[in-house]
């Protein structure tokens, strides 16, 4: 178990203790909610793990780096940015996927573009966003998010 995992689990346990002292009914409600979300996310977790395993097992690193590595340039970053915007997986699960391609030849810029568009932009939820907030705000938010995601990605590529 690494340090991050210990810290996260520590925070969860501390939070639970405080919650139980403050209001045990609400604490139990939180636990139930956590259990439900966990079960809900579980199939997706396995699908992502399988995707990673197949990706690393069957696609050689030089192929990954050809598409989204240092030398793929602007095109590769834009493509992976679009993939991130279209994908509809929980943000939490985008990080293991991102780390697997980073370790196997993808550039920092590409990985940053992927996680940033994936979290910020929701093409699947766009109709709902338009319905609740209007076309103007929803389209502007998603459109500009894509541009800033690409900018953030390039700055990260330069610094790291």
């Amino acid at each position, binding site marked *: 178990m690494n340090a991050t995992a210990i810290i996260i689990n520590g925070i969860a346990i501390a939070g639970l203790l405080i919650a139980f002292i403050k209001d045990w009914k609400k604490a139990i409600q939180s636990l139930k909610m956590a259990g439900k979300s966990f079960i809900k996310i579980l199939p997706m977790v396995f699908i992502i793990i399988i995707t990673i395993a197949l990706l690393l097992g069957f696609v050689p690193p030089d192929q990954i780096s050809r598409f989204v590595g240092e030398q793929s340039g602007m095109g590769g970053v834009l493509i992976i940015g679009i993939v991130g915007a279209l994908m509809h997986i929980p943000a939490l699960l985008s990080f293991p996927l991102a780390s697997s391609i*980073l370790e196997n030849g993808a550039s920092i810029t590409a990985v940053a573009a992927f996680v940033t568009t994936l979290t910020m932009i929701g093409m699947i939820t766009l109709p709902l966003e338009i319905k609740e907030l209007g076309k103007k705000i929803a389209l502007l938010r998603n459109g500009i998010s894509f541009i800033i995601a690409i900018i953030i990605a390039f700055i990260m590529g330069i610094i790291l």
Partner: protein
Amino acid sequence: MKPGEKQTKQKKKMIRDWFFLGIAIVFVVILLSVFPTKTEAVTLTTQEYFIEMIIILPAVMIIMGLFAVFISNETVVKHLGKTSGIKGIAISILIGTLPTGPLYIAFPMAATLIKKGARVSNIIVFLSAWACIKIPQEMVEFQFLGAEFMFLRLILTIIFVIIMGISIEKIIGWSERRNKIEGKRGIEG
């Protein structure tokens, strides 16, 4: 959306996810029987990533559950509706980062805020913070991509999200003014 309707929709989604998982497993089994030499590598990666995820996911879910139950939507709306300026933006970011569920929960809240007259910049910052700088999300990013990556992306995201919020507010204000002028012309002409 009615609660009952939402539940059946979630159930459908669950069934769909398990169905996809089933297809994925069948696909892997077939693939590995065709390429048996890859079996070891695939099982090893699966094991490694499974362990890395399973040691943090329950804790992340508990943290999210605690926040969702102890901080109500009303509290969020109350704190966001009345502040503006730098303080407004800071509060929008802070509340957005609280681990309280997926983005589509935030849309109706943002809609309520617009009706209550909150500034567009605050709402954009709030939505974007909600989407991409949630605390548990940062923890998982830290775990898989490292401290440098996570902190740099966090800082850059905050800066650019604020710029985006202010720009969208300006664009919308500008287009509304133009519409008003055009509307007047329409009446006169």
